[in-house]
């Protein structure tokens, strides 16, 4: 660290270095090393190909052997599961739609009265009119079989972790992996295991949907009041009686939240799993129409998905709340009406698979979009191009390469590089003079990133940088974790793709942090704003990931920018929510104390609320990061070149090793980012004594 000391003494003042500035100086030293010596020693910038390990091949070999062993069991399972799936599918398709609509309406009535009854009725009638009834029912059949599977699996895992606290750490790690590894990555081994067909989608969605259930069961059990637990013990219940007669029922509310999340995850995944095809469901429909650029039908099919999602979400969420018993007669009445309409429909010869009265609408939407893009095409293009040329592209490949006469009007030369670093040095000197060493060093590092671009960052900078951040946020242990995990990607040969993923996710997270932070601030200041934003947030969180691609495609076509927008749309929500929540949930006494000291509205906001909200906002950022990575893989469908793309490639080529390695690399990126931010959130929380 002699270089760091030299720098700090060069400032000519006695500065006590904080942990943050020490880390920043260390990274700066690495940056200098790589920047200055990178030309001579190429391995400093680019990991030599000779040293990469064919991890994908090893994986293929390793997992392949493993899969071969379990294949017979898995195939039997496929065989067994395909029956209930076919039965449910057959049942849902065979029952005439008026009857199904009536049944859902009646259920809605029983759960949540007139509000949910209306939701169920209107929603399903919409599906009927789109003409996607039978595809919709096929999707529901998948959900109907995968959800019980996920519920049982999740509950079992949750109970296991609760009963054997020693396993809790392992179980939590497993759940983290199940949720961070992109589903597409394990779709490949699942395909090998379970054979081609809808069962794979079903199992993938069960795996994806089990963790939220497990977490909520565990949380619910842990939150059961000690005395309730003890009362069961003192009544002389056996452990099993305590668990099933007292503790689980007492945790019902939390568990129902788990059921709700499980349902939503399963639906989202069933739609996504349609990429493997083989089943005439709504996800497939969306994908097909999207590929053919038929935006009207894609839009309608997407709407069907959204309608399902909203109905399932609201109804299962209502189950988690205490409710008034509803009048059964009304429900029977609804069913009777349904039966009557059914008979009439059969007599009148209505088409059994929906009415498709909206084909006209689809065409209208199509035309509308056509007209819109034709009219505003130049505007849309200029939005897209401006963001690409002046934002995303420089971030990716650096100013040195992105600045071209064709877009920027001049070519980047050594002179500009000197100017860039000169300006950075000036700013940083000013900052040092003000005693803000960390910020000063950060400016220099940022200048380096701006020149080189994220995709061309030297690997020591990324890995040691992550290690340094880890050290600041969570000590040596976290630093070690970050370095080791990232090194794995490095030697696996997926490094360049991983940097591209990092760049796209990073750009999206940055945009979300700024936009979401501002929107969150706005909704904290104004209730009207929140009244508008809240339903939008709810909506964005309800709809399956896949659907985000439709509107983006409609307006911006295939490409990185569309992917970027789709990621932002999905990942911005937690940022808004947590920022607002953090800002408005400052304890009243503290606000009153600030007001009593004469602080104005904005002063209170920045001096009192914001510091207090920091841990919550950081948690929001953390969520945003995870959301961004989740969406990254989906967005790869519409044109990116990063890891997500590789995962799709593997899926197409049936390449187990590549799929798993690329998926693992993606999961590592998400996991490391997650832990780093969580470390900061934890540190803030402790500093505030929360």
């Amino acid at each position, binding site marked *: 660290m002699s270089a760091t000391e030299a720098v700090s003494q060069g400032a000519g003042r006695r500065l006590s270095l904080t942990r943050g500035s020490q880390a920043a100086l260390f990274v700066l030293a690495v940056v200098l090393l790589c920047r200055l010596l990178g030309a001579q020693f190429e391995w400093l910038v680019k990991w030599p190909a000779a040293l990469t390990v064919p991890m994908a091949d090893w994986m293929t070999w390793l997992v392949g052997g493993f899969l071969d062993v379990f294949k017979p069991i898995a195939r039997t399972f496929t065989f067994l599961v395909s029956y209930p799936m076919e039965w449910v599918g057959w049942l849902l398709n065979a029952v005439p739609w008026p009857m199904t609509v009536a049944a859902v309406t009646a259920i809605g009535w029983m759960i949540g009265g007139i509000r949910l009854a209306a939701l169920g009725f209107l929603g399903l009638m919409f599906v009927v009119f789109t003409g996607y009834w039978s595809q919709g029912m096929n999707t529901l059949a998948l959900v109907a079989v995968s959800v019980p599977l996920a519920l049982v699996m999740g509950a079992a895992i949750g109970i296991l972790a609760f009963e054997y606290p020693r396993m809790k750490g392992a179980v939590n790690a497993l759940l983290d992996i199940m949720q961070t590894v992109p589903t597409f990555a394990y779709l490949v081994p699942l395909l090998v295991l379970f054979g081609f067909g809808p069962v794979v989608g079903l199992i993938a969605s069960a795996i994806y949907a089990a963790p939220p259930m497990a977490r909520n069961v565990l949380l619910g059990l842990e939150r059961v*009041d000690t*005395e*309730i*637990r*003890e*009362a*069961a*013990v*003192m*009544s*002389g*219940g*056996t452990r099993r*009686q305590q668990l099933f*007669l*007292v503790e689980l*029922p*007492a945790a*019902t509310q939390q568990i129902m939240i788990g059921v709700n999340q499980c349902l939503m995850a399963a639906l989202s995944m069933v739609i996504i799993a349609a990429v493997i095809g083989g089943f005439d469901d709504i996800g497939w429909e969306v994908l097909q129409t999207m590929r053919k650029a038929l935006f009207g039908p894609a839009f309608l099919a997407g709407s069907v998905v959204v309608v399902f999602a909203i109905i399932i979400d609201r109804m299962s969420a209502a189950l988690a709340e205490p409710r008034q018993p509803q009048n059964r007669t009304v429900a029977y009445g609804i069913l009777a009406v349904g039966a009557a309409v059914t008979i009439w429909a059969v007599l009148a010869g209505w088409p059994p698979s929906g009415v498709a009265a909206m084909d006209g609408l689809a065409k209208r939407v199509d035309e509308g979009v056509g007209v819109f893009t034709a009219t505003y095409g130049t505007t849309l293009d200029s939005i897209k191009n401006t963001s690409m040329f002046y934002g995303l592209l420089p971030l990716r490949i650096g100013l040195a390469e992105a600045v071209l006469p064709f877009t920027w009007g001049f070519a980047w030369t050594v002179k500009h590089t000197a100017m860039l670093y000169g300006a950075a040095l000036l700013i940083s000197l000013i900052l040092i003079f003000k005693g803000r060493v960390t910020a000063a060093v950060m400016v220099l590092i940022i200048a380096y990133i701006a020149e080189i671009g994220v995709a061309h960052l030297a690997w020591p900078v990324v890995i040691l940088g992550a290690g340094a951040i880890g050290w600041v946020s969570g000590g040596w242990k976290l630093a070690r974790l970050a370095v080791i995990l990232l090194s794995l990607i490095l030697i696996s040969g997926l490094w360049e793709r991983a940097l591209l993923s990092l760049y796209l996710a990073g750009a999206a997270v940055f945009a979300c942090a700024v936009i979401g932070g501002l929107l969150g601030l706005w909704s904290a200041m104004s209730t009207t704003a929140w009244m508008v934003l809240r339903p939008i947030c709810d909506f964005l969180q309800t709809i399956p990931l896949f659907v985000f691609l439709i509107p983006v495609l409609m307006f911006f076509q295939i490409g990185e920018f569309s992917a970027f927008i789709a990621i932002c749309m999905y990942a911005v929500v937690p940022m808004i929510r947590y920022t607002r929540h953090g800002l408005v949930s400052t304890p009243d006494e503290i606000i009153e104390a600030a007001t009593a000291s004469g602080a104005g509205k904005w002063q209170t906001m920045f001096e009192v609320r914001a510091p207090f909200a920091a841990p919550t906002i950081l948690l929001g950022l953390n969520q945003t990061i995870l959301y961004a990575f989740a969406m990254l893989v989906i967005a790869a469908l519409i044109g990116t070149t990063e890891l997500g793309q590789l995962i799709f490639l593997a899926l197409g080529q049936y390449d187990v090793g590549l799929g798993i390695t690329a998926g693992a690399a993606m999961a590592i990126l998400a996991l490391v980012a997650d832990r780093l931010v969580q470390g900061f959130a934890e540190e803030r929380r402790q500093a505030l004594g929360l």
Partner: protein
Amino acid sequence: MTDKNSTAPAIAVEDLWQVFGENATSALRDARGAGDDKAIAQTLKDKTLIPAVRAANFEVKSGELFVIMGLSGSGKSTMIRCISRLIEPTAGSVRIDGEDILQASDKRLIDLRRHKLGMVFQHFGLFPHMTVADNVAFPLKMQGAGKAERRARALEVLQMVGLEGREDTYPRNLSGGQRQRVGIARSLAVNPDIWFLDEPFSALDPLIRRQLQDEFLNIQATLKKSIVFITHDIQEALKLADRIAIMRDGEIVQIGTPEEIVLHPVDDYVAEFSKDVPKGRHACVESILMDGIPDNMPDDPGIKIGMTLDTALTKCMELYEPVPVRNAEGNVIGAVHPHELANALQAEET
């Protein structure tokens, strides 16, 4: 298993320790060398462990009503959790009817809890997903009683605590006091021999509390259970207890009859509890009996062993004649009888 001994105390606690924190057992073992109990406790505290019960020794005789008192956080609840083995004591022994409960197998524990032990929880511990009747009948269900039998018994005990008519509501729809009574009813349902009550009347208003205390004494007079009763309220303790244990910081500082506690507190902490207690109402004449018998005494007021000091005083006053009462100018305007004076100061209770 220890053989059962009919003369054994209902509960015998010996050198019982409960230390909360990481590696409590080994920490306690290491700390044993530090000296007396205080020194051990201090050593543990220095390691940021919490000695919630330290070196407790006492017995509860069969049919005795044993009250534990102490400030909040002094370890009362922890004590009965140890005795009922809801938590595993760090060290020491607990015998119930002569049987070492800390050695009992899981099966034996379940058996004991089903048939012998009952507990009322400080915060009631009601099952939120069950109706009042189902809550009360739950221990019976564990015993394997039939549905009709359970229901009948539940209604019976609910009536006992004055909750008839509320059997099909859910706990969340009851007031705090009503919930507490459900908790009491539940612990009564199986008619336990040994009964742990953790501040069972704390959420009740004074009127109902008095009523339930009287009811409680009635039950106790006929059923003669062995009871460990926790309370904050010295009046309640004095009214109900056969013996009282006072706890401070996990330590039992004094065990004695209500009278001993009131008249001979071992230190200021105990004295503080009974500061506001009218001593004459609880102490009996034997507590202040002189050693020798003086030669000449006035007329015999008829004082007997077992009389409270208040009653004795009234009796003595009867020996006097009425005395004059004067106004501000010093003129006699009436008379009072000293006996009446003493009587008026005494509460209506006997």
